[in-house]
């Protein structure tokens, strides 16, 4: 097992009075793909959104415990959330490009970081689009609106936009759930490529997808981490009965 990038210690999260995550302890290895699976409402997306403090936006959320990234607690008082989010990119379930050109979508992150030199921006945009495997499809229309792209292309554009900020970790919240099988295939290939350079955490509904793309799998159920281990092991010889029942499709 590679080095651990993210560790949570007794992470518990409440929405108001309702407990959504119950004492989660999980180590997530660097430069590998970790998949979170589980039925709807099990807390896997909530957990993902803790990792870049996206839950801060919801006033009723209360979090206890620790999340250590590179050994530092991201919920400690002094942390700069804005810098944290530069280090941890996120790709959402629904592709969400800005109503700007393809170029400006990818340049958004670098621009807010103060890169305004057009030559530098052009290089970043080209590199990010290439790394997100969408360059060939859009290179002739970089200045057209991103909203004219297909759903699958939009999602890869969103990945390119995330890559442009040069994060270390990429969180993916069901990135292919709204896409057709061909686009999904492309995203999965892309994830496979990206894990050479990035730590990837992916939430998915689709168990085949988890089995295909991930190195480690965590099964969540009712806000608890039921089982966590090598993907091959989880899908062939799970230790817990609940995991087995979910994987074999008996519930969820």
């Amino acid at each position: 097992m590679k080095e651990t990038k993210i560790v949570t210690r007794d992470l518990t999260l409440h929405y108001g009075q309702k407990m959504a995550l119950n004492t989660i302890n999980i180590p997530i290895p660097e430069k590998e793909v970790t998949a979170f699976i589980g039925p709807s409402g099990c807390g896997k997306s909530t957990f993902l959104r803790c990792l870049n403090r996206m839950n801060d936006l919801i006033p009723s959320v209360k979090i206890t415990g620790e999340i250590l990234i590179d050994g530092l607690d991201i919920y400690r008082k002094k942390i700069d959330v804005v810098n944290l989010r530069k280090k941890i990119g996120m790709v959402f379930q629904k592709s969400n490009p800005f109503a700007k050109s393809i170029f400006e979508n990818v340049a958004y992150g670098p621009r807010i970081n103060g890169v305004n030199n057009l030559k530098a921006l052009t290089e970043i945009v080209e590199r990010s689009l290439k790394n997100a495997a969408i360059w060939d499809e859009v290179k002739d229309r970089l200045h057209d609106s991103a909203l004219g792209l297909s759903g699958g292309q939009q999602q890869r554009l969103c990945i390119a936009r995330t890559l442009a900020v040069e994060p270390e970790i990429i969180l993916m919240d069901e990135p292919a759930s709204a896409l057709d099988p061909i686009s999904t295939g492309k995203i999965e290939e892309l994830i496979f490529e990206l894990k050479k350079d990035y730590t990837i955490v992916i939430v998915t509904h689709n168990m085949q997808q988890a089995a295909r793309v991930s190195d480690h799998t965590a099964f969540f159920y009712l806000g608890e981490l039921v089982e966590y281990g090598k993907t091959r092991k989880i899908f062939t010889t799970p230790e817990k009965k609940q995991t087995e029942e979910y994987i074999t499709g008996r519930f969820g």
Partner: protein
Amino acid sequence: MKLKNKIIGGAITTASALSVVLIIAIIIVILVVTIIGGKEKISWEFLTAFPRDGMMKGGIFPAIYGTALLVIIMSIAAVPFGTITAIYLSEYAHEKSWLAQTIRFAVRTLATVPSIIFGLFGLGFFVQFVGAGMDNWFLGGQLKWAQPNLLWGSLTMALLTLPVVIVSVEEAIRTVPRELREASLALGATKWQTIKKVVIPGSISGIMTGTILAVSRGAGEVAPILFTGAAYSLATLPTSVSDQFMNLGYHIYVMSTQSSNVDQTLPIQFATTLVLLMLTFTLNLAAVLIRSSLRRRVK
């Protein structure tokens, strides 16, 4: 039972169709009456010349010019202030905080206050309090600001139109999807960067619409400027915000109340009304067109 439903449905359909026809008919009648009443007066001269012969001849250019200045200064005051308030309400304030609720209550109340009250408030606050204070502090008591002028009239009008701006901008801001804000924040943008680069561009059509609605409202109101800046008649155009100004709505009021010779003033009233109607109509049309073109661009 079925028959009863059918009758009720039919009655409602007929009633709504009639209402639509009635509303359109009213607009047409107003237009036709003003056009017939004012057509002999409407001319190039009417639009571009100063009034002469006791305002019975010549044109209404100073009133058009004054109205234009009024709405411009009013917009400069009301649009940024209203936009900032709307951003505060929708982005920063907690929905249930007492401050946000107080602001919302104030905005709703402001929208229902009769316009003449704004006029009185403008007189008491801007002219007699702020203006007199400025004269005392900066000019050693010399009279300059403590009298009705373009600035006080515009600011009073800005107060009247502020709720229109706040409400339309806030509505527009709410239509910016949460996903886009999250995308921006997840890329490491600060809240302000997100507002500046995602939220405001996404609600620009609402800001434009709010502006134009405020302008067309402000162009038509008379009561707020009655005591705060509008002049009966002026020989020269205003050259400073401390000058008084003529105004289309006020001109109609003057024509209809200050002359005993109705036969002579009536065509001028109608012609002035027509100019004012065309102005507000054009502005509203512009609002609709801007909104739809921006909406198309976003999709």
